[in-house]
């Protein structure tokens, strides 16, 4: 069950470079660690993160076991039009979580 804190400026000027910050709640369990019972703790990581802006991919990333729990990603894009940013992250079991944010471009 992932949750995320997403920061997108509510308003921007057309052509402006905007910074987007995302903090995902996720254990990013590597699959290499053993638990108290000596058994391997199953891998549970986010494998892919994608951000689309009005349907177009503006940023995507592959994540690997060496990445910290609760990954923080920050990236920039150009404010083109008012609309919606869709953030989705997919874990190694193939489950996808989606969150959206809207932006107003003047």
């Amino acid at each position, binding site marked *: 069950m992932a*949750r995320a*804190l997403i*920061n997108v400026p509510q308003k921007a000027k057309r052509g402006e470079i905007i910074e987007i*910050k995302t*903090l995902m*709640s996720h*254990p*990013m369990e590597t699959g290499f660690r053993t638990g108290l019972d000596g058994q391997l703790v199953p891998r549970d990581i986010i494998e892919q993160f994608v951000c689309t802006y009005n349907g177009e991919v503006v940023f995507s990333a592959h994540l690997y076991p060496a990445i*910290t*729990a*609760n990954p*923080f990603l920050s990236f920039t894009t150009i404010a083109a039009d008012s609309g919606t940013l869709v953030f989705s992250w997919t874990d190694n079991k193939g489950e996808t979580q989606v969150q959206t944010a809207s932006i107003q471009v003047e």
Partner: protein
Amino acid sequence: MNRLLVILLVCVALPASAQDARKSGFAFMGPDTQAMQTDDLANPGMLSVLEGEALWNAKAGTSQKSCAACHGDAPQSMKGVATRYPAFDDTTQAPLDLAGRILQCRTERQGALAFQREGRELLALTSYVGHQSRNMTIAPSQDTRLAAARAQGAALYSTRVGQLNFSCAQCHDDNAGGHLGAAPIPQAHPTGYPLYRLEWQSLGSLQRRFRNCLSGMRAEPIPAGSADAIALELFLMDRAAGMKLETPAVRP
């Protein structure tokens, strides 16, 4: 005249700031880690606060009541509560920490299954309640029935234990500001708990921090929620009286 005023002001201002040599662990961190704590959108502890908020509003147990059903809005009802814990509990006639108080409400008032002491849910609720006192000053309970536990905590803090024969005070009073390996030794103020520790990759309680230091000292860890752990917490909160709470802090 002006110069005199300046000199006077300096004389007045200096003792006030020089008087309090206490510093939160925040002051010992690098600028990147500090920035992570102060930006609510980069502070991973805020994810737990959010989870705590959801738990606060969720019905649970045989009462089918949420915390909010009895306490209303946490930003009002829980404001300042964390500044005066551990407190003396009348029902058990013993000191109780904030997590213990929440557990008590959970089991006895909500009629729900107990949360695990250092489990994710209890940490989330404790950080949510603690967060309502962020930037407020620590104001320990003045209940005289806490005196014995306070003394017990002071003794635990200054007694040498473990295979390395260290006391907490040797590091956190005598060598604070120095280094242990690469890590700066802070003054052990409990201002940020529960907090997100980068090394843990998760939120953790003050009592987990005790176990962390104790295992470094090759001493027997103090179990979470035990009388010893609460006594030590009580002593440290007293020692930090007047300092500001930062919950949820970030530490390396």
